[in-house]
């Protein structure tokens, strides 16, 4: 009985050792952890770096939480006129989806070859995760238009050669990525994924989180607009009227009007 227990422990130890060597947990750094959105904010950069074995590749992703998004759908009416024919809802669509690739994997993506598809990191991978309501025969067409719209807003990015390497000693290399955070990226918490690729397979995925949060005057104004909306509306009107009156008086003094 005792022997069986010892064998069990040995097997468990071996299993954990093998698992750890396979998944090879690795550390990475990123900065800043909180992106502050102030008065003069016009987007930001998120820097990601770390070390990886020489024969591995690294893909960096930023993924927003799955959201429900509503859109107007255009279609032809009477065979001639293009106009809104209905509304569609996208469920489980990440609010943000950035994928930064190193040179080797960028080539796979350019060729759209099997190696690239098997990684499942491109926009195509989202097709089966996103649900479009009401269900439509044109799901692919709607999905492609959704990607176009999100890409136009820079909220979906596929950045080729976005991850670079620098050789280090002892069979290691340093990876670096500078993620472009667009001004239009909604406030909130985002998942940062650093994906280690060995050969044509994903070996491990490390995850961290960073935040986009308002500070100073934008924060004050947002609170006022959402928590004291009537006061905010009246204030907006009063300021506008005074600005108009001020300009009127200013121009009168210059002798323009009579």
């Amino acid at each position, binding site marked *: 009985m005792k022997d069986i227990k010892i064998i069990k422990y040995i097997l468990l130890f071996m299993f954990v050792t093998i698992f750890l060597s396979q998944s090879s947990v690795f550390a990475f750094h990123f900065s800043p952890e909180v992106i502050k*959105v*102030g*008065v*003069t*904010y*016009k*987007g930001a950069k998120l820097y990601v770096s770390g070390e990886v074995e020489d024969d591995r590749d690294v893909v960096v992703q930023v993924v927003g939480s799955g959201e429900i998004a*509503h*859109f*107007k*759908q*255009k*279609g032809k*009416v009477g065979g*001639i*006129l*293009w*106009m*809104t*024919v209905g509304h*569609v809802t996208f469920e489980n669509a990440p609010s943000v989806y950035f994928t930064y690739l190193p040179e080797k994997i960028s080539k796979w993506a350019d060729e759209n070859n099997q190696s690239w598809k098997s990684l499942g990191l491109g926009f195509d991978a989202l097709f089966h995760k996103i649900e479009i309501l009401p269900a439509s025969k044109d799901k692919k*067409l*709607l999905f492609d*238009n*959704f990607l176009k*719209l999100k890409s136009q*807003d820079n909220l979906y990015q596929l950045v080729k050669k976005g991850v670079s390497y620098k050789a280090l000693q002892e069979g290691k290399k340093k990876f670096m990525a500078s993620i472009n955070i667009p*001004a*239009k990226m*909604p*406030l909130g918490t985002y998942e940062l994924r650093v994906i280690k690729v060995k050969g044509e397979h994903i070996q491990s995925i490390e995850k961290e989180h960073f935040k986009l949060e*308002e500070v100073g005057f*934008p*924060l004050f*104004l*947002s609170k006022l*607009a*959402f928590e004291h*909306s*009537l006061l*905010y*509306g*009246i*204030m*907006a*009107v009063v*300021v*506008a*009227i005074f*600005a*108009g*009156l*001020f*300009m*009127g008086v200013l*121009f*009168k003094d210059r002798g*323009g*009007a*009579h």
Partner: protein
Amino acid sequence: MLHMYLPIAGNSVNVFLIFGLGGLVGLLSGIFGVGGGFLMTPLLIMFGIPPTVAAASDSNQIVGASTSGTLAHYRLGNVDMKMGVLLLIGGVLGGAIGVQVIKVLRALGNADFLINITYVIMLGFVGTYMFIESLQNLRKSKVKTSDKSLESTPKESIYIKFMKTLPFQTTFEKSGVTMSMLMPLILGTFVGILAAIMGVGGGFIMVPVMVYLLRMPMHVVVGTSLFQILFTCINVTIMQSYTNHTVDFVLALLLLLGSTVGAQFGTRISKKLKGDQLKIILASLVLLVMVKMLFSLLLPPSMLLSYAGGH
């Protein structure tokens, strides 16, 4: 270039670009007495502002521009308060009816089709009529020297005779017309309904209505239209802030800094132009908007999806 973050729009904009946009639209507002929402909202959407925020913030900036424009026109004696108040009452009433009408239309389906077609036909008809009529008057004015005499001597048509039969006849001194108080009330309601259905401020419909149906002189039309737009937009700004939280005050402030200056210059330009010259330029603008809308209906869109909300 100086950028500023807009907390409600959730985007950053170039300060000078927005100031310039405001200036351009304020200029149009001062010249023609229109709010300029037809131009500003699509431009703001083009610069990355969500449609709902663009439309609501534009209403907020129109409050500033129309205050500036109304004040300038008031000093020039171009605001008919009595007429303006009656049109405003009608407009508010019409707006409320229009909201219900749009609900019924949407329930019946294909409301957008009806709205778009009405918009194109109406703008086309009003623009063409205004353009031809003003052109004829301009030609005639070479013989008759004053454009004022043309504006103040309307033909004795069936319409004029009908107007004279209505009760509550009153004189509108600033406009130099005598008619029933019911006329501006009814027409204001009609414009309010159309404006609510189309999701526009109504300046484009109100100006031709004042010129052709209320027979007001063009310069008084511009001032009175601005006066009415001012109150309509105050109402819209407060309602949008309260119910939808879509007014971006920073965006509106940047726009109105430009538009209030633009409105002052616009008023000066308006003063230098003859009534028919003003009408012909406005008619060209109306036709331009109509053609743009027609193209957007006929040409395949670059994208089949757009964010829900806005006009």
